[in-house]
């Protein structure tokens, strides 16, 4: 099993006829995802690389039975694309687009309240992969392997790093969810923890956060009361200066040190989460959580990598 996506997922790609959309529609299909079509307004009826193109999400859903959408639409149109998919009644939206204006996302967040059955992952994210089953995102499939660890992260390449460290130890992943690096995103760390807690095949969770906001702290508070599975966490940005945006629009330490890595790590530790100090020890730390009796063996294996 896995969360959010799996073998049965039927994916459409909004913006499939664009360069990025087309490239990744292929990559998702090659990984084994059932990519049933694309949506580009005005290009309905066309067939691109075997993908049928529809004018609207609603048409694509009724023709193909799609239940998830992956969005590669330019930033100023992306909120509209998310809204269209939401109103069409799709269950899962994964928005890869980086650079969506914040106030557009304020309106999207508000509209999501009227569509409680719809889950939005992202924007500005690497997407979702359930190794061995399906991917809806831009991550490389070959660094992943199926297994018991759920990963939730605000960052793309750092998630790849974590997955690769785990895979190198022979530890696979149930699902990896990139929730995105923007200040306002759909799914939160907490939402992802709840999904992993309920997933019978996930035995431990790695939560990757970064400076800015309080998504990790909120997740930790929730985990303290609701999580039975072990959670390890890493917070990127302890070396970051306050007040500067570190690449991601949401990665900025606020006034009075709000959202600093030290602050977050302290809150997470208080909630009983295993905080990893070094980004080189993501894999071995999770290995120890899974096999608490053999910490030395797991650690040694990790160093040999």
């Amino acid at each position, binding site marked *: 099993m896995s969360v959010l996506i799996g073998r049965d997922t039927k994916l459409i790609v909004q913006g499939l006829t664009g360069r990025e959309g087309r490239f990744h529609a292929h990559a998702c299909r090659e990984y084994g995802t059932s990519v049933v079509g694309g949506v580009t307004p005005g290009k309905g009826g066309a067939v691109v690389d075997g993908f049928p193109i529809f004018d609207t999400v609603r048409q694509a859903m009724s023709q193909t039975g799609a239940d998830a959408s992956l969005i590669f639409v330019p930033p100023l149109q992306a909120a509209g694309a998310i809204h269209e998919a939401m109103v069409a009644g799709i269950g899962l939206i994964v928005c890869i687009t980086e650079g969506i204006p914040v106030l557009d996302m*304020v309106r999207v967040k508000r509209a999501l309240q009227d569509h409680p059955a719809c889950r939005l992952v992202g924007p500005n994210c690497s997407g979702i992969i359930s190794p061995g089953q399906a991917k809806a995102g831009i991550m490389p499939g070959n660094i992943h392997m199926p297994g018991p660890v759920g990963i939730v992260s605000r960052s793309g390449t750092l998630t790849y790093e974590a997955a690769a460290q785990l895979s190198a130890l022979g530890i696979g992943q149930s699902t990896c969810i990139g929730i995105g690096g923007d200040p306002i995103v759909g799914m939160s760390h907490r939402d992802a923890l709840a999904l992993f807690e309920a997933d019978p095949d996930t035995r431990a969770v790695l939560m990757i956060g970064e400076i800015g906001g309080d998504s990790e702290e909120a997740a930790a508070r929730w985990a303290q009361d609701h999580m039975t599975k072990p959670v390890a966490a890493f917070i990127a940005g302890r070396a970051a200066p306050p007040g500067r945006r570190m690449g991601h629009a949401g*990665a900025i330490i606020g006034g009075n040190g709000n959202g600093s890595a030290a602050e977050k790590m302290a809150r997470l530790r208080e909630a009983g989460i295993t905080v990893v100090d070094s980004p080189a020890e993501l894999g071995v730390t999770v290995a120890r959580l899974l096999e608490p009796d053999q910490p030395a063996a797991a650690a040694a294996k990790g160093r040999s990598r």
Partner: protein
Amino acid sequence: MDIHEYQAKELLRAHGVATAREQLAGSSEEARALAVAYGGRLVLKAQIHAGGRGRAGGVKIAETPDEAARIWSQMMGMTLVTSQTGPAGRRVRRILAAEPVATARAFYLGLTVDRSIGRVVLAASAEGGVEIEEATRSSPGSVWRAEIDPMVGCTPQMAEVLGRGLGLDAGLVETWKAMVVRLYGLFIEKDCSLLEINPLVQTPEGALIALDAKMSFDDNALIRQPEIQCLRDASDDVPQEIEASRLGMSLVKLEGEIGCMVNGAGLAMATMDLIQLCGGRPANFLDVGGGASEDAVRHAFRLLLQDAAVKVILVNIFGGIMRCDAVAAGIVNALRESGARVPVVVRLDGTNRAEGRRILRESGLELVVAETFQEAAERAVSLTTERMRQSPGGTP
């Protein structure tokens, strides 16, 4: 993007918010003339992109026109170090000259996006001149907040509740309501990320005047805000950072010696963190983009080599869709072209990593190919220590 106080006030006036009489003074003589025009006294305010000016000597009151001219001359060109500028401070290039305003009461009024709830929040307090975070901490009861539903907007009723909470004089409530509603409109129309009037003062005559103002804008939205883009003052920005942003990369200059080149923001931060954990100091944050194309790598080397503080370069690339062999070829080409005079440590992982590392090792270039993330950081730190010992005094 931040704009200066005088620019924010122009926007406020265009949206019906009163300010004192004020304008930029381009010379000491102009400052003297403005003091005369405003009745003898003058407030001179350094225009820099950072708060905390008052305590750092960036806001002064001249009692006479002569003093105004003298203060202008002292202030222009000085470097202001405030709690928000960092140790390098900011050079004063513009001075706003304002008519002094008598104050009966002072308020705080601010709009910002609260990311944890995903809404615009209006905040007000009766302690004008105090930072809102400070007021929230010292007397939480004095801060009034309203979360705004984007489908409804800021209503006059919402503004009224806030105004009454502040204990606003009854005669001012209508002015206040209209002002708050207009400010919300301005915030939305211009894609602001912060709009603060602090203090908003009530004069003894009963007028509401914005005495200081701060506005920041969402970088992601600038593309649809050409008028706001025109307000950019890049004179304080680090040239390397501007260049990186033009190239679609993200660079933040830091204080250390190890130049970092990484793909992806999270991994770039983690790389800085690991350098620090290993006892070194990163010279920068640099995200060349998730894909790490050859072009991006070439530009990134050029940017890092421009920085005299960089003693060692650490390249940490996780090859995904862009395979490691392609990245390695890009690194080799870029390094040959750049004629790098500093040691380079490369850590490549991900798709086709063995082939990528082979290309690096067989390139004939003097670079350290690290097998693991940990090893890369350790080598970069030890090489830096060696270099610093060889040429002491090279950096602070």
